[in-house]
């Protein structure tokens, strides 16, 4: 798998991992903040669910830019490793979470044989990460002890968050980046270039 990747693509993944690793850590605080606001309304369980999609975004961005097998998975795991390297309270368990979320996002790209990167696929990929991470949290955070009605509501919120914050926002950020021209050496930039040429001709 790694032989198909150029070194610059791997360093790009790790730079994305560094940037989003920091953002991921910051969003734990954001989640806690939203949660504190929601407590008086009895909606505390939804604090993290609303923003959960953010934690899958690097998979979408990396896969959309590089368009190669294994990228969605690896980028997410690298971001998790960076979170651990940053040496806060994030331990090796976070890498495991990254592996699960990354694999879930990769699954959708694998089903299209890594050929289709339209918005709907990116959204599906975000939702797949949301669904599988939710199942993992049933076990890892003991959510299985919660009432079924609440769990279903939480799952729906997380799926929407995965679709919007990972799928739609991830595509938007990548497209904005491609417009600056820095991605000319990568799959997304090349596609944009091609479109421009055919448009001009």
């Amino acid at each position, binding site marked *: 798998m*790694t032989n198909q990747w150029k*070194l610059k693509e791997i360093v790009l993944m*790790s730079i994305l991992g*560094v940037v989003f690793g920091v953002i991921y850590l910051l969003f734990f605080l954001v989640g806690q903040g939203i949660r504190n606001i929601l407590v008086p309304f009895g909606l505390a369980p939804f604090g993290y669910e609303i923003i959960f999609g953010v934690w899958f975004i690097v998979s979408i961005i990396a896969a959309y830019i590089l368009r190669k097998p294994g990228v969605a998975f690896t980028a997410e795991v690298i971001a998790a490793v*960076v979170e*651990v390297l940053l040496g806060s309270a994030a*331990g090796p368990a976070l890498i495991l979470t990254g592996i699960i979320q990354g694999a879930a996002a990769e699954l959708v790209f694998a089903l299209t044989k890594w050929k289709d990167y339209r918005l709907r696929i990116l959204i599906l990929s975000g939702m797949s990460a949301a669904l599988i991470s939710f199942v993992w949290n049933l076990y890892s955070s*003991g959510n299985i002890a919660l009432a079924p009605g609440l769990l279903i509501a939480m799952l729906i919120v997380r799926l929407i968050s995965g679709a919007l914050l990972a799928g739609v926002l991830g595509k938007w950020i990548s497209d*904005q*980046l491609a417009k600056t021209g820095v991605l000319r050496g990568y799959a997304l930039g090349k596609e944009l270039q091609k479109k421009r040429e055919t448009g001009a001709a």
Partner: protein
Amino acid sequence: MFMISSINPTIKAFAVLIPGILLGFTFDVFTPLVYFIFILLVTFTLTDIPVIKWMKIFSPFLLVALGFAWMTTLYANQTFSYGDVLFSLWGIEVTTGSILTGISLAFRSLCFVALSLLFALTTDSTKFMLSLMQQCKLPPKITYGVLAGYRFLPIFQHELQILRQAHRIRGIGRTRGIKGRLNQFRRYSIPLLANGIRKAERVAIAMESKGFTGDTDRTHYHKMTVEKKDWLFFAMIVGTFVVVVGMSYYFGYLNIFGKQF
């Protein structure tokens, strides 16, 4: 005895990970509580982490754990709300079972945090990556790619500052409202990422021009080794967990997914 900072990072990571995963099965108070006390003992005897520093990082999680316990208590499902009804709040009946499950989950999350801190505060990040490459056979391309990216972090901070100053000097102030915020987010994030991508390209070219091929058949300046003491540490952390579960079973506390053993 050994200090935990000298343990091989990969072995340490797995030693911390395995009890963390297995704790997911238990829903009684005894098991996570006793194991939590054990981790505290290990933290304060086998490492030189200052207690004050540890408390500072740990204390916010107490609040998080408490909130989590309270939520589980209120919203526990039928399997976990066994026992007598203690009181009812806003029409929700709180039973002994739901309270015990809540407390158990709180201690479980505290165990996670304490285990993570035990790892994070005693592990050098470069050594961790080198160990992942030498023990876990992570490809050198990825290892050195991540290390190179990781080193850019201080530069990103510096660049953010420059961006801010550049905006200010051109008279772009802070904006209000959701639309303004979104615009501001784009003004900072896109240039920052674009610069990062340019750097990624340059670093990759520099690495390759200096002869880095990503070959797995290479020599290492820093050799990471696994010794007897590493396995001793592994056996201690994982073994104690098994003993605690055994004790819990013996005293009749053990509860796995709401089933009493």
